[in-house]
């Protein structure tokens, strides 16, 4: 299967990765280990393979969503429409399944296409109308929410996940490796390829650094921005599809829990919020960090208040460890 070649490929590149590894990314991975060690003081189970695999599985939903977010952040933009893009993806995929066997087959693509549609609106707003992404995506998020409320109330919604969605999120194509993790790995590999090997990827970094210079170099910057937002919308929706598969159904508020964590994960992974700088490996580290942190805090019997405080403090401390901008002098 392609997975073995993939793993082989990664292993083959490992030394190069390490050689060129960003200190921030290395520190981020070190923080992951530290977090697990601290957790294991509370319960040995935090080091158990089942628990770790389960975290990877749960992390892969955030991972897929953060992949899109990272692409947009590399452009120096942001996508605040994640919550309802996720919900739209999940709900529309489940909705399509109501339309007979054909619907079931098209469920997943349909969900993703709906997410892409939101992304395209974002992209048009940002690229062609030059509306700041922070605000246009906020607005499309509100519109998507409105559409879903109308949809839920107006029709008897079908909202259970199809078997295919269930399989993608919770099945095992390879023993012991949840499918969701494989999917994340594939999407991640595709993203790494896109960012490092293609003209599109270079253009993304170029625009993130200096859009004017990229434009004057003959890049169709507007198309690149638009495509990036569409991809982000599509990946958010795909995250929603997976999440629906995981929960075996879609619900409106599904995406709420993914907005701030996806931003935090990308930035924790060393990507500059101003765009133009960041590596996917960092995002992987960020996603795992956030997921683990949330999970460990959730299981330690701590009141919500304490959990929030620890969550915030840990993020700040980790960033102070490695996420600082260089001194100006």
């Amino acid at each position: 299967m392609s997975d073995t070649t993939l793993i082989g490929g990664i292993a083959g590149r490992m030394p190069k990765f390490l050689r060129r590894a960003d200190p921030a990314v290395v520190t981020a991975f070190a923080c992951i280990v530290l977090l697990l060690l601290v957790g294991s003081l509370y319960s040995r189970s935090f080091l158990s393979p089942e628990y770790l695999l389960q975290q990877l599985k749960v992390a892969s939903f955030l991972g897929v969503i953060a992949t899109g977010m990272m692409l947009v952040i590399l452009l120096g933009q942001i996508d605040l429409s994640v919550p309802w893009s996720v919900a739209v993806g999940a709900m529309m995929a489940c909705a399509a399944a109501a339309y007979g066997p054909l619907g079931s087959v098209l469920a997943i693509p349909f969900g993703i296409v709906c997410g892409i549609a939101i992304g395209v609106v974002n992209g048009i707003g940002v690229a062609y109308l030059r509306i700041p992404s922070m605000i246009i995506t906020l607005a499309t998020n509100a519109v998507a929410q409105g559409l879903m409320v109308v949809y839920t109330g107006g029709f008897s919604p079908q909202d259970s996940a199809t078997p295919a969605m269930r399989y993608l999120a919770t099945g095992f194509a390879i023993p012991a490796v949840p499918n969701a993790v494989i999917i994340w790995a594939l999407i991640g590999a595709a993203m790494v390829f896109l960012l490092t090997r293609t003209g599109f990827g270079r253009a993304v970094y170029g625009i993130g650094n200096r859009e004017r210079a990229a434009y004057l170099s003959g890049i169709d910057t507007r198309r690149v921005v638009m495509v990036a937002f569409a991809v982000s919308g599509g990946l958010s929706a795909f995250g929603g599809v997976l999440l629906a598969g995981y929960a075996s159904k879609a619900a409106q508020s599904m995406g709420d829990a993914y907005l701030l964590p996806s931003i935090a994960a990308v930035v924790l992974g060393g990507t500059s919020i101003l765009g133009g700088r960041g590596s996917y490996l960092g995002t992987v580290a960020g996603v795992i960090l956030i997921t683990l942190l949330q999970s460990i805090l959730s299981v330690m019997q701590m009141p919500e208040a304490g959990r929030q405080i620890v969550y915030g403090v840990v993020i700040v401390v980790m960033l102070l460890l490695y996420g600082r901008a260089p001194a100006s002098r």
Partner: protein
Amino acid sequence: MDGAVPLFSMQGISKRYGGVRALEKAELSVTAGSIHAILGENGAGKSTLIKVMAGVVAPDEGRMLLDGSEVSFASPAAANRAGIVCIFQELSLIPELSVADNIVISDPPKRFGLIDRKAQRRIAEEALARAGASDIHPLALVKDLPLSRRQMVEIAKALARKPRILILDEATSALTATDVAKIFGVLKRLREEGLALLYISHRMNEIAELADQCTVFRNGRNVASYAAGSKSDSEVVELMIGREYSHIFPPKPARHGAAVPVLEARNLCWTDRLDNVSLTVGAGEVVGLGGLDGQGQRELLLAFFGVLRGLAGEILVDGKAVSIASPSAARDGRIGMALIPEDRKTEGLMLPMTVRENLSFAALDRLSKAGVIDRATEQRLIDDMVELLAIKTAGLDIPVGALSGGNQQKVVIAKWLMRQPRIVLLNDPTRGIDVGTKQELYQLMRKLADAGAAILFYSTDYDELIGCCDRVLVLYDGAVKRELVGAEITEHALIASALNIHGEGAGPLQGEGA
């Protein structure tokens, strides 16, 4: 001025950036009431030296004495307080603030603890007047001003701080002859008033006119100090570049008849900036654009490159009308146009990205199959370019921002040459570039032309137009006022037609509006 006590001196100053030695035990001393010129090729350490002086950069070692006592500056503000004011090479104006705000930015006049806008405006108007730039409205936002006006504001801002030592790091690089003349008047007056001035420029004629004392830098060290006028130009240049130097401009080939037109414009009009511009550029021809700065030259280049909307008139390539709606259309195979933009830092390069990524950025479509970059081809073309232009870099994978300005400029040019353009538009490409590099650039331009490219070249430096161009079109107020061909291209003719005055020997006027 012999025997004068140094007002300020620097001893044994060193500064390293990673492996790069920007300064190596550099020395400098400055006396009051004189103008001290600093010369050196790109990356010689001039800017770094004055940044140390101005508190922007902390030196690794060495000491500085002001009035004989040791000082060190923790920030530009501290240096300002000591009376050292610097006009930095990369402008230090704040784009979203008004001219007046900018002029008083470091120490605004206050009333009841709040900024006194009336007083601020008065100070700004005075300072602008002193700099000879009263035409700039103090309430205008800096971002709305063209580069040349911004440099005037920068000078006014420095004057408003009442400095004891004033440093100008290539402060005139974007100015035209008239502005430069005004500034020189100001600087000479300041010298009379007893200020010490430090002047960095790559324009030899300016230094000859202004300087009392010169210091030449090479590779982070001061290699010579001499009284102005005691060495010939070519001696100085040899000191700078450390090798022999001759014939800055390559010879122009003889022309027989009209060249085959490659690029042609017919009656281009755009807002109030372009007024019925018609021109042709033939294969193998270098056509210059002259005139005072801001007469529509930049707009004309942008118009060709597909950047302007609502353009009236026709653009023809190879005699066929084309519509160019974006730079990506302009660079496209059939048209094959390239634009070396005005400001390499914001328009030409992505500074934090690597030299490699910048070099291949404009040619990615050619290097890719199905969107995937062919890295072997990329490497090969990059190597060719680095060799062709002799780009000095510590490696292909360092940020292009870490290169010296001249080498950055070469990267901008190389990234376009990689596409083998047939039409090359150059927008003041030698700004802030040292003589050695300039020479290489002129030769390159001629080489491209000889290979059949059509070149349209805008420069604020008349010597360049004279030395490089087969023909020069002089623009005034958005219209072509004169065409100078061959031997007609003289400094006198250029200046006269730039000011739109009919001097003797003026050629036939072009355009109906004249």
